[in-house]
Protein backbone atom coordinates (compact mmCIF):
# COMPACT_ATOMS: atom_id res chain seq x y z
CA UNK A 1 0.00 0.00 0.00
CA UNK A 2 1.32 3.42 -0.86
CA UNK A 3 0.01 6.80 -0.01
CA UNK A 4 1.42 10.26 -0.01
CA UNK A 5 1.07 13.89 -0.74
CA UNK A 6 3.50 13.99 -3.62
CA UNK A 7 1.98 15.42 -6.78
CA UNK A 8 0.61 13.24 -9.53
CA UNK A 9 3.34 14.72 -11.70
CA UNK A 10 5.85 12.52 -9.93
CA UNK A 11 4.50 9.49 -8.07
CA UNK A 12 7.36 7.25 -7.00
CA UNK A 13 7.10 3.51 -6.59
CA UNK A 14 8.93 1.52 -3.94
CA UNK A 15 9.58 -2.19 -4.52
CA UNK A 16 10.52 -4.08 -1.38
CA UNK A 17 12.21 -7.48 -1.37
CA UNK A 18 12.18 -9.57 1.80
CA UNK A 19 14.81 -12.24 2.42
CA UNK A 20 11.96 -14.77 2.66
CA UNK A 21 9.79 -15.02 -0.38
CA UNK A 22 6.69 -15.94 1.64
CA UNK A 23 7.27 -13.01 4.03
CA UNK A 24 6.68 -15.20 7.06
CA UNK A 25 8.89 -14.74 10.13
CA UNK A 26 9.02 -15.96 13.70
CA UNK A 27 9.77 -13.85 16.78
CA UNK A 28 13.53 -13.44 17.12
CA UNK A 29 14.12 -13.85 13.37
CA UNK A 30 16.01 -11.11 11.61
CA UNK A 31 14.13 -9.41 8.79
CA UNK A 32 16.42 -8.44 5.93
CA UNK A 33 14.90 -5.91 3.55
CA UNK A 34 16.14 -4.52 0.26
CA UNK A 35 14.22 -1.88 -1.64
CA UNK A 36 14.35 0.05 -4.85
CA UNK A 37 12.75 3.42 -5.49
CA UNK A 38 11.46 3.86 -9.02
CA UNK A 39 10.17 6.80 -11.00
CA UNK A 40 11.88 9.41 -8.87
CA UNK A 41 14.79 11.68 -9.71
CA UNK A 42 17.33 11.30 -6.86
CA UNK A 43 17.83 15.07 -6.89
CA UNK A 44 14.25 15.54 -5.65
CA UNK A 45 14.54 13.57 -2.40
CA UNK A 46 15.43 15.31 0.88
CA UNK A 47 15.43 12.31 3.18
CA UNK A 48 14.20 8.78 3.73
CA UNK A 49 12.78 7.12 6.82
CA UNK A 50 12.84 3.33 6.87
CA UNK A 51 11.08 1.44 9.61
CA UNK A 52 9.62 -1.83 10.80
CA UNK A 53 6.33 -1.27 12.55
CA UNK A 54 3.18 -3.00 13.69
CA UNK A 55 -0.27 -1.49 13.89
CA UNK A 56 -3.75 -2.53 14.79
CA UNK A 57 -6.63 -2.30 12.38
CA UNK A 58 -10.31 -2.86 12.95
CA UNK A 59 -13.44 -1.19 14.29
CA UNK A 60 -11.97 0.75 17.20
CA UNK A 61 -9.08 2.97 18.19
CA UNK A 62 -5.82 2.17 16.45
CA UNK A 63 -2.47 1.44 18.01
CA UNK A 64 1.00 1.57 16.50
CA UNK A 65 4.45 0.47 17.56
CA UNK A 66 7.64 1.31 15.70
CA UNK A 67 10.12 -1.49 16.29
CA UNK A 68 12.97 -0.30 14.09
CA UNK A 69 13.56 3.16 12.67
CA UNK A 70 16.35 4.89 10.82
CA UNK A 71 16.48 8.16 8.93
CA UNK A 72 18.74 8.85 6.00
CA UNK A 73 19.85 12.43 5.37
CA UNK A 74 19.76 14.07 1.99
CA UNK A 75 23.04 12.74 0.61
CA UNK A 76 22.42 9.17 1.72
CA UNK A 77 18.80 9.34 0.57
CA UNK A 78 19.87 10.38 -2.93
CA UNK A 79 22.33 7.50 -3.09
CA UNK A 80 19.59 5.15 -1.94
CA UNK A 81 17.14 6.35 -4.58
CA UNK A 82 19.84 5.88 -7.20
CA UNK A 83 21.15 2.47 -6.15
CA UNK A 84 18.64 0.97 -3.69
CA UNK A 85 18.45 0.68 0.06
CA UNK A 86 18.61 -2.06 2.62
CA UNK A 87 18.29 -2.61 6.34
CA UNK A 88 17.76 -5.45 8.77
CA UNK A 89 16.43 -5.85 12.29
CA UNK A 90 15.66 -8.70 14.66
CA UNK A 91 11.99 -9.13 15.52
CA UNK A 92 10.71 -8.90 19.10
CA UNK A 93 8.79 -11.68 20.90
CA UNK A 94 5.49 -9.89 20.36
CA UNK A 95 3.03 -8.81 19.09
CA UNK A 96 2.32 -11.55 16.59
CA UNK A 97 0.39 -10.97 13.40
CA UNK A 98 -3.28 -11.66 13.98
CA UNK A 99 -6.34 -11.65 11.75
CA UNK A 100 -9.15 -11.15 14.23
CA UNK A 101 -12.72 -10.13 13.56
CA UNK A 102 -12.78 -6.90 15.54
CA UNK A 103 -9.06 -6.21 15.58
CA UNK A 104 -6.13 -7.26 13.43
CA UNK A 105 -2.42 -6.85 14.07
CA UNK A 106 -0.27 -6.20 11.06
CA UNK A 107 3.47 -5.86 10.65
CA UNK A 108 4.94 -3.83 7.84
CA UNK A 109 8.05 -2.34 6.36
CA UNK A 110 7.48 1.35 5.83
CA UNK A 111 9.59 3.49 3.53
CA UNK A 112 8.85 7.20 3.70
CA UNK A 113 10.33 9.60 1.18
CA UNK A 114 10.58 13.32 1.90
CA UNK A 115 10.50 16.04 -0.73
CA UNK A 116 10.99 19.80 -0.80
CA UNK A 117 8.19 21.77 0.82
CA UNK A 118 7.45 19.16 3.46
CA UNK A 119 5.71 16.79 1.06
CA UNK A 120 6.17 13.09 1.61
CA UNK A 121 5.29 9.69 0.20
CA UNK A 122 4.80 6.53 2.25
CA UNK A 123 5.03 2.98 0.97
CA UNK A 124 4.01 0.06 3.22
CA UNK A 125 4.74 -3.60 2.68
CA UNK A 126 3.23 -6.22 4.97
CA UNK A 127 4.79 -9.33 6.37
CA UNK A 128 3.78 -11.84 9.04
CA UNK A 129 5.24 -12.54 12.45
CA UNK A 130 4.22 -15.87 14.01
CA UNK A 131 1.54 -18.28 12.91
CA UNK A 132 -1.63 -17.48 14.79
CA UNK A 133 -4.55 -18.85 12.77
CA UNK A 134 -7.13 -16.32 11.64
CA UNK A 135 -10.13 -16.05 13.93
CA UNK A 136 -13.27 -17.82 12.78
CA UNK A 137 -16.79 -16.56 13.30
CA UNK A 138 -19.27 -18.84 14.99
CA UNK A 139 -22.45 -19.65 13.09
CA UNK A 140 -24.40 -17.47 15.53
CA UNK A 141 -22.10 -14.49 14.95
CA UNK A 142 -22.17 -14.90 11.20
CA UNK A 143 -25.97 -15.26 10.98
Amino acid at each position, binding site marked *: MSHGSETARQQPRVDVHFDRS*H*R*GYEPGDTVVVRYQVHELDPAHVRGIEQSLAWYT*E*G*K*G*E*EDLGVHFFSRLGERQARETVATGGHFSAPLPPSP*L*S*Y*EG*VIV*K*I*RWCVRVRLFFPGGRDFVSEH*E*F*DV*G*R*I*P*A*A*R*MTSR*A*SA
Partner: protein
Amino acid sequence: MSPTRQRPRNPFTTRFIRPGSLAPRDAEGNPLDMAAIVGRLADLGGTAAIEGPHGSGKTTLLVAVAESLAMTGRLAGMVRLRAWSDGVRAVRLVSRAAAGTMVLVDSWERMGPVAARVALWSARRRGCGLLVTSHRPTGLPVLAQGRTSLELLERLVAALPDHGGLIAADDIAAAHTTHDGNLREALLDLYDRFERRAR
Protein backbone atom coordinates in the same frame (compact mmCIF):
# COMPACT_ATOMS: atom_id res chain seq x y z
CA MET B 1 -1.76 -20.05 5.27
CA SER B 2 -0.38 -16.62 5.99
CA PRO B 3 -2.33 -15.20 8.94
CA THR B 4 -2.91 -11.78 7.46
CA ARG B 5 -1.62 -11.09 4.01
CA GLN B 6 -3.65 -13.47 1.84
CA ARG B 7 -7.02 -12.37 3.13
CA PRO B 8 -9.05 -9.59 1.53
CA ARG B 9 -8.58 -6.28 3.27
CA ASN B 10 -11.61 -4.86 5.07
CA PRO B 11 -12.11 -1.36 3.62
CA PHE B 12 -14.38 -0.31 6.50
CA THR B 13 -11.67 -0.30 9.19
CA THR B 14 -11.12 2.80 11.30
CA ARG B 15 -8.01 3.47 9.29
CA PHE B 16 -10.03 4.21 6.17
CA ILE B 17 -13.24 5.68 7.60
CA ARG B 18 -11.95 7.95 10.38
CA PRO B 19 -12.22 11.73 10.06
CA GLY B 20 -9.22 12.86 8.07
CA SER B 21 -9.21 9.74 5.89
CA LEU B 22 -12.53 10.48 4.20
CA ALA B 23 -13.03 13.82 2.50
CA PRO B 24 -16.08 15.81 3.68
CA ARG B 25 -19.06 15.71 1.33
CA ASP B 26 -22.48 17.28 1.10
CA ALA B 27 -25.70 15.30 1.56
CA GLU B 28 -25.69 14.35 -2.12
CA GLY B 29 -22.17 12.95 -1.82
CA ASN B 30 -20.29 15.72 -3.62
CA PRO B 31 -16.93 16.76 -2.12
CA LEU B 32 -17.13 20.06 -0.25
CA ASP B 33 -15.17 23.10 -1.41
CA MET B 34 -12.97 23.68 1.63
CA ALA B 35 -11.85 27.13 0.49
CA ALA B 36 -15.51 28.18 0.35
CA ILE B 37 -16.17 26.68 3.80
CA VAL B 38 -13.23 28.52 5.36
CA GLY B 39 -14.32 31.71 3.60
CA ARG B 40 -17.85 31.34 5.00
CA LEU B 41 -16.37 30.82 8.46
CA ALA B 42 -14.59 34.16 8.13
CA ASP B 43 -17.85 35.79 6.98
CA LEU B 44 -19.52 34.49 10.16
CA GLY B 45 -16.90 36.23 12.27
CA GLY B 46 -14.80 33.16 12.99
CA THR B 47 -17.03 31.69 15.70
CA ALA B 48 -19.55 29.15 14.50
CA ALA B 49 -20.86 25.62 14.83
CA ILE B 50 -21.14 22.55 12.68
CA GLU B 51 -24.38 20.96 13.80
CA GLY B 52 -26.09 17.73 12.91
CA PRO B 53 -27.09 14.31 14.17
CA HIS B 54 -24.63 11.58 15.18
CA GLY B 55 -22.67 10.17 12.27
CA SER B 56 -23.49 13.01 9.88
CA GLY B 57 -19.87 13.99 9.16
CA LYS B 58 -19.41 16.85 11.63
CA THR B 59 -16.00 15.69 12.86
CA THR B 60 -14.90 14.85 9.32
CA LEU B 61 -15.64 18.43 8.28
CA LEU B 62 -13.99 19.83 11.42
CA VAL B 63 -10.78 17.88 10.71
CA ALA B 64 -10.78 19.09 7.12
CA VAL B 65 -11.17 22.70 8.33
CA ALA B 66 -8.30 22.10 10.77
CA GLU B 67 -6.08 20.93 7.91
CA SER B 68 -6.99 23.97 5.82
CA LEU B 69 -6.26 26.35 8.71
CA ALA B 70 -3.01 24.57 9.57
CA MET B 71 -1.76 25.09 6.03
CA THR B 72 -2.09 28.85 6.50
CA GLY B 73 -0.76 28.87 10.07
CA ARG B 74 -4.13 29.89 11.53
CA LEU B 75 -4.86 26.80 13.61
CA ALA B 76 -4.27 27.41 17.33
CA GLY B 77 -5.35 23.88 18.19
CA MET B 78 -8.11 21.31 18.20
CA VAL B 79 -9.63 19.51 21.16
CA ARG B 80 -11.93 16.50 21.06
CA LEU B 81 -14.04 16.46 24.21
CA ARG B 82 -13.95 12.94 25.58
CA ALA B 83 -13.33 13.53 29.29
CA TRP B 84 -13.90 16.32 31.80
CA SER B 85 -10.25 17.37 31.56
CA ASP B 86 -10.63 17.99 27.82
CA GLY B 87 -13.00 20.87 28.60
CA VAL B 88 -10.32 22.45 30.76
CA ARG B 89 -7.83 21.94 27.95
CA ALA B 90 -10.17 23.64 25.48
CA VAL B 91 -10.63 26.68 27.72
CA ARG B 92 -6.87 26.90 28.29
CA LEU B 93 -6.23 26.68 24.55
CA VAL B 94 -8.66 29.51 23.81
CA SER B 95 -7.25 31.68 26.60
CA ARG B 96 -3.77 31.40 25.04
CA ALA B 97 -4.70 31.59 21.35
CA ALA B 98 -3.27 34.42 19.27
CA ALA B 99 -5.57 36.92 17.62
CA GLY B 100 -6.66 35.80 14.18
CA THR B 101 -6.17 32.12 14.89
CA MET B 102 -8.85 29.46 15.39
CA VAL B 103 -9.57 26.93 18.11
CA LEU B 104 -11.61 23.91 17.08
CA VAL B 105 -13.65 21.90 19.58
CA ASP B 106 -15.30 18.60 18.75
CA SER B 107 -18.41 17.50 20.73
CA TRP B 108 -19.12 20.94 22.18
CA GLU B 109 -22.30 19.59 23.81
CA ARG B 110 -20.02 17.93 26.36
CA MET B 111 -18.72 21.29 27.59
CA GLY B 112 -20.39 22.33 30.78
CA PRO B 113 -22.39 25.59 30.49
CA VAL B 114 -19.88 27.53 32.56
CA ALA B 115 -16.87 26.24 30.62
CA ALA B 116 -18.66 27.00 27.35
CA ARG B 117 -19.36 30.60 28.42
CA VAL B 118 -15.76 31.06 29.57
CA ALA B 119 -14.42 29.69 26.27
CA LEU B 120 -16.69 31.98 24.21
CA TRP B 121 -15.82 35.00 26.34
CA SER B 122 -12.08 34.22 26.10
CA ALA B 123 -12.31 33.81 22.32
CA ARG B 124 -13.93 37.27 21.98
CA ARG B 125 -11.36 38.80 24.31
CA ARG B 126 -8.40 37.20 22.53
CA GLY B 127 -9.75 37.96 19.05
CA CYS B 128 -9.56 34.32 18.03
CA GLY B 129 -12.24 32.20 16.38
CA LEU B 130 -13.97 29.16 17.83
CA LEU B 131 -15.42 26.46 15.60
CA VAL B 132 -17.31 23.68 17.35
CA THR B 133 -19.29 20.58 16.46
CA SER B 134 -22.44 19.58 18.27
CA HIS B 135 -25.38 17.30 17.76
CA ARG B 136 -27.50 19.76 19.74
CA PRO B 137 -28.32 23.39 18.83
CA THR B 138 -25.56 25.65 20.16
CA GLY B 139 -26.99 29.11 19.62
CA LEU B 140 -23.90 29.95 17.55
CA PRO B 141 -23.99 30.84 13.85
CA VAL B 142 -24.20 27.59 11.88
CA LEU B 143 -21.35 27.02 9.44
CA ALA B 144 -22.74 23.72 8.19
CA GLN B 145 -25.64 21.47 9.02
CA GLY B 146 -24.79 17.77 8.79
CA ARG B 147 -27.24 15.78 6.70
CA THR B 148 -26.93 12.30 5.31
CA SER B 149 -28.53 10.24 2.59
CA LEU B 150 -28.23 6.82 1.04
CA GLU B 151 -26.56 8.47 -1.94
CA LEU B 152 -23.90 9.95 0.34
CA LEU B 153 -23.21 6.57 1.95
CA GLU B 154 -22.92 4.99 -1.50
CA ARG B 155 -20.42 7.64 -2.58
CA LEU B 156 -18.38 7.14 0.60
CA VAL B 157 -18.25 3.37 0.06
CA ALA B 158 -17.16 3.94 -3.54
CA ALA B 159 -14.33 6.17 -2.29
CA LEU B 160 -12.99 3.45 0.05
CA PRO B 161 -10.58 0.71 -1.00
CA ASP B 162 -12.16 -2.03 -3.10
CA HIS B 163 -14.37 -4.47 -1.16
CA GLY B 164 -13.91 -7.14 -3.79
CA GLY B 165 -17.62 -7.55 -4.44
CA LEU B 166 -18.34 -8.67 -0.88
CA ILE B 167 -20.69 -5.74 -0.29
CA ALA B 168 -23.78 -5.32 -2.45
CA ALA B 169 -25.94 -2.26 -3.03
CA ASP B 170 -28.61 -3.90 -0.84
CA ASP B 171 -26.11 -4.11 2.04
CA ILE B 172 -25.42 -0.39 1.81
CA ALA B 173 -29.14 0.41 1.74
CA ALA B 174 -29.82 -1.92 4.68
CA ALA B 175 -26.98 -0.42 6.74
CA HIS B 176 -28.27 3.08 6.04
CA THR B 177 -31.83 2.19 7.06
CA THR B 178 -30.86 0.14 10.12
CA HIS B 179 -28.83 3.01 11.56
CA ASP B 180 -31.23 5.82 10.65
CA GLY B 181 -28.68 7.53 8.43
CA ASN B 182 -25.87 7.47 11.01
CA LEU B 183 -22.98 7.04 8.59
CA ARG B 184 -20.41 6.02 11.19
CA GLU B 185 -22.62 3.19 12.43
CA ALA B 186 -23.58 2.25 8.88
CA LEU B 187 -19.93 1.93 7.85
CA LEU B 188 -19.19 -0.19 10.92
CA ASP B 189 -22.20 -2.35 10.02
CA LEU B 190 -20.62 -2.85 6.59
CA TYR B 191 -17.36 -3.77 8.35
CA ASP B 192 -19.20 -6.63 10.06
CA ARG B 193 -20.87 -7.77 6.85
CA PHE B 194 -17.51 -7.80 5.10
CA GLU B 195 -15.91 -9.86 7.90
CA ARG B 196 -18.71 -12.43 7.80
CA ARG B 197 -18.26 -12.96 4.07
CA ALA B 198 -14.46 -12.81 3.94
CA ARG B 199 -13.99 -15.79 6.30
